[in-house]
């Protein structure tokens, strides 16, 4: 059979901050899908691994005008001068040209953590402990995703395992192209508010491409010039101000609460 390469895609997301309720289902689904090890008792919010992490922001106003919103932050899959890929000394970070996904190779990672210093979105997480699952919990492991070892960095890869599974299914049916919705990361699937839309940003017919072009969409830290592929949407001006801010939000002492 002649090799027909599918058209390269550029997968991205549009996350509606007005729909996000902060329930955290995306975080749980992500951890379950990707075999993230359970946190040790000594772990803190700064040493735990959450490929997807929901932040809480507030408008800083006193009661009864105080309002909260939730911002899910995951790897932004930076498309230009990807900070982490540029700095990894072992080339353990690779951008897949067919999907635009920034892939992390934990088996090549030395654990130098330079990529973690480089990532402005703090989307990279280090295995400070040996991953361990309590007896019986190993039954919950997803057989399609490799676990990592201690001392290496890991991060969201848009559930790359699911992409491979979808491609395998399509190939079994004799197709090269994937139908929209056939490949969805776990967080997208799990969100009860359907706040996350996923798809090919380069496909003009896809919903995510339409939403990305929409005036309500913005990207976080856009001025750093890394071309992230996660678009955030909101109609609330204060949320936009708090999240689309190019730099640190406010003076010390007035910063929003961090989840």
């Amino acid at each position: 059979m002649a090799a027909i390469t599918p058209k390269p895609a550029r997968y991205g997301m549009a996350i509606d901050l007005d729909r996000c309720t902060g329930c955290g289902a995306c975080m749980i689904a992500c951890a379950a899908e990707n075999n993230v090890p359970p946190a040790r008792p000594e772990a803190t919010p700064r040493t735990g691994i959450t490929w997807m992490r929901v932040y809480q922001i507030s408008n800083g106003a006193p009661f009864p005008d105080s309002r909260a919103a939730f911002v899910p932050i995951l790897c932004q899959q930076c498309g230009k001068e990807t900070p982490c890929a540029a700095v990894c000394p072992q080339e353990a970070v690779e951008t897949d040209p067919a999907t635009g996904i920034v892939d992390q190779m934990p088996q090549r990672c030395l654990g130098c953590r330079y990529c973690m210093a480089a990532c402005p979105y703090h989307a990279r997480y280090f295995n400070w402990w040996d991953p361990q699952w309590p007896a019986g919990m190993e039954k919950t492991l997803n057989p399609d995703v490799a676990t990592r070892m201690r001392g290496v960095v890991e991060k969201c890869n848009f559930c790359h395992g699911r992409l491979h599974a979808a491609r395998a299914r399509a190939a079994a049916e004799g197709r090269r192209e994937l139908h929209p919705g056939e490949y969805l990361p776990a967080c997208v699937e799990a969100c009860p508010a359907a706040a996350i839309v996923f798809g090919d940003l380069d496909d003009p017919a896809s919903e995510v491409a339409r939403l990305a072009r929409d005036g309500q969409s913005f990207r976080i830290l856009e001025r750093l010039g890394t071309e992230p592929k996660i678009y955030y949407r909101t109609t609330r001006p204060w949320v936009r101000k708090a999240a689309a801010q190019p730099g640190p939000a406010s003076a010390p002492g007035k910063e929003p609460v961090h989840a």
Partner: protein
Amino acid sequence: MPNADTQLMPRGVRRSTPRQFLLWILPWAALLAFGVYGAGLCLVKGLNQTHMDNRFAFGLWIFLDLTVIALGAGAFFTGFLLYILKKSELKAVINSAVVIGFICYSGAVAALLVDVGQPARFWFTFWHPNVHSMLTEVTFCISCYLTVLFIEYIPIVLKNRKLRQIPSFLVFEFELHKLMPVLAGVGTFLSFFHQGSLGGLYGVLRGRPFAFREGFAIWPSTFFLFILSAAAAGPAFILLTTWLVSKVSGKQLVRPEVLPMLGRISGVLLVPYILLKSIDTLVWIDSTSPARGFAAYQYYAWKPFGAWILFAEIVVFGLAPALILLRRRLRESPAWLLSAATLVCLGIALNRFVLTIQTLALPTLPFDPFMSYLPSWQETATFLAVVAYGVLLYSFSFRYLTLFPQEKDLSC
């Protein structure tokens, strides 16, 4: 009274008795053992033994590695001045500088092996190098340079009183010494690049506007600033260590004009450094940082890192020692000379601290707070192990090798 120990010491110099030496060595050996235990915990149990975390991916170790490598730059710079520019007065301190350089670099490499999550994978960088990454450049250069320092250390060891009686050692040392300018040249080339790349590590971080700088071609300005500051700090550190060893051993080790000369070299290099750093800071405040959406004053709103840090780095620890070291009258006064040299070295440490720790403390995400970090005892212990290792290696080298060729002539 000659004994087996005195047979190993250089002739014509006095050293402490074996018992006195043992009393000196023991506490450092104990510190080394304690530090190795701390490091061992990190290796065995994992890096959770440190207080580093996902926001403070770099901590005490990286900050100290960068500082000791900058201070150890005295080895390459003295070698460059002596063997390439033929400033023969530096023969008085070159051996000591090489030993200190070797200690600094080997200690830093040892600390790095504990710092990475998978030390056994260190060779991956050599097998899959990312030639665009500053850290790859640092890895290659530092490995090569450590080799150069080792090769430069060998002749000093081979000239030990007992070892030199073996003719093949002495003849090999003689032939190697003829090629010392080659080694000095290679060492200078390598040091130029890795001191620079250590600065480049931070200058290229587009995601950290506090550290990010524009520059020349692929090299951000921090690349050049680090080279200059290391070249300025090297002689100052040699000055300090020579004085310290002289004090601890109670002997005059170099002729009186040597230390002020080192101070002058340091001062001369500080001037262009301060100038370029000031220009760089202004450019950063004015255009680089705002272009990325961060106004410079915002960084300094987070306590305790106020604008005083910038002032301290450039004026207190940069301009002030430069002015002192450039005046002959002040240079010749030990109090002024040593204070100025200390300020230079502290300034280098502050500069490395700002780029490592402050960079990571400052928030990048709009809804992030300021982070703080304090090292754990295991981290501190590991660093102290490196210090103890350095003191022990230097002590043995000082006792049995000729680190200061002028000592013999000054001791009668």
